[in-house]
């Protein structure tokens, strides 16, 4: 699966990262990895911050990194009109999912409403899965915050469905 920044942070905060990457083949877009500012986990109760070291996971091969070409990411960005704007890493994930043969069967896991809706706009609704579902499928099921729930993902899939009727957000 291709993981967005939100679930990576969420898995660390849940203390489930290590087991999760053992049970799934996890791919992180290069642009998500490059954005160091995204990565630290935060204890909700104490506010204490812990840095997340993805480089070590990548170095050991526990996590794979995938890079899209500039042309591929441009093709994805060009599909959207200027009424939706995603993070560069999210655009790269969508470019990989739609254009790179190695990832045409991969699932996309994000906790970002706009990213899920963007994926659905490109016809990837069936490949968007919540962290809650993914955890449950490998016996790691637990209570997660709203953004990681199946309900959150489904809500944004529905919102995209409503937009799709009018062709909102996509160029012809």
């Amino acid at each position, binding site marked *: 699966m291709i993981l967005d920044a939100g679930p990576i942070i969420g898995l660390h905060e849940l203390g489930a990262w290590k087991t999760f990457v053992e049970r799934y083949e996890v791919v992180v877009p290069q*642009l998500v990895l490059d954005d160091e*500012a*995204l990565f*630290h986990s935060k204890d909700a109760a104490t506010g204490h911050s812990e840095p997340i070291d993805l480089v070590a996971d990548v170095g050991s091969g526990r996590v794979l990194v995938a890079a899209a070409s500039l042309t591929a990411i441009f093709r994805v960005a060009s599909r959207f009109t*200027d009424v939706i*704007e995603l993070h560069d890493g999210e655009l*790269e994930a969508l470019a990989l999912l739609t254009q790179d043969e190695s990832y045409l069967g991969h699932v996309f896991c994000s906790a970002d409403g706009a*990213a899920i*809706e963007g994926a659905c706009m490109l016809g990837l609704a069936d490949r968007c899965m919540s962290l809650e579902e993914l955890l449950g499928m490998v016996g790691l099921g637990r209570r997660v915050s709203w953004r990681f729930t199946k309900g959150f993902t489904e809500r944004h899939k529905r919102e995209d469905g409503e937009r799709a009727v009018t062709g909102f957000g996509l160029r012809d």
Partner: protein
Amino acid sequence: MSQEIHNIGARIKAAREAAGMKQEELARAVGFASRQILSDLERGVRDVKASEAARIARLLHLDLSSLLSDPQPKPRVLWRAQPSEGSEPIEATFLQWCDRQRRVLRLLDQNPPDQLPSYDRDLAQMTYADADRLARDVGRSLNLGARPARTLCDALESQFDVTIWYLDTPPGCAACTRGAHGVSILVPCGEAPWRRNFDIAHELFHLLTWTAAEREMSADGTCAPSKRTEQLANAFAASLLLPGELVLRELEERSAARRVKLAELVAMARDFSVALDTLVWRLHNLGCWPDRAAVDDVLRNPRLREFDRASQAGEWSQPTRLPERFVQSAYAATLRGRLSRTKLATYLQCGLPDLPVCLATYGIDEGLAELTSQDISLEFQTGDLDAIAMPCEQA
């Protein structure tokens, strides 16, 4: 190679040249093995990784999304004391924020508003008295009240849709821009509040006379306002922040037999939220203190300077990092599912886990906002309110 890469290549080249960077310099900073890679990319004969393009964008003070979308004409920026070296990155950063604002408003189906009046006067013919009249007109229409410096920013933002960006630029290097991307002022964030107020008032003059300034610069073949225009802008700023009648009334209250203590002038400067120098020169220009040499002497007095500095401590305040309206608009776009939350964190310059805390500094409680973002259906129509029957008495 595809037309797509050809188009992006051309945009990268234009952005690099606007930033005043050579190919070698940018190629080295990106980490390309040779300049040729960048040259090929710019000519549209080579594709690169998206992450390399993102690095290029970052080095050119652009968002990757700007490089990927239809190019916008480069707006003109007017500088007050443009830095002698290294102004390109500052200007590029300022325009990057203006572009972010434009993009965020587009996500909300809006265009950057421009409610600011235009005074298309020949600047070469304009007198200080004209600048003073213009300041009085603007002060009245903005309803700035008895202490204009204290209300100017809010009034400009709420009534004229002027966005004020406080960026990390050298002191004195304020700038402004007006066009399809909106109306914005750049103010150095490290300056004292009273200096910032003066910068904003000074830049407001340029924004009001934007058309005339552009014409003047085109005729002269320059890219900066003339010295005379700068003096007019200073006169305008002083009049706007220190309206003659208010200053004279205050002076009367603080003086005895037309004599006033220097300490009272310092207190008056703080009260009006202007620099002591600005107040003293305003008094000189209003004819209250005609002896220019005496004014110079007083302003050089080290004990007065020390007293002035000591009086500033309680009045010093830092501006918010980003304009509140920009943050509110960006957050509204996120709530509507149009701006990714991760991108919002990038715009707010914070890490994703810190976003709730960062939003809270702008008065947004993300948890509560999400609870209240549920849509409800209302039945209403716009039109003649009198024609709408009131179905029931108010409880």
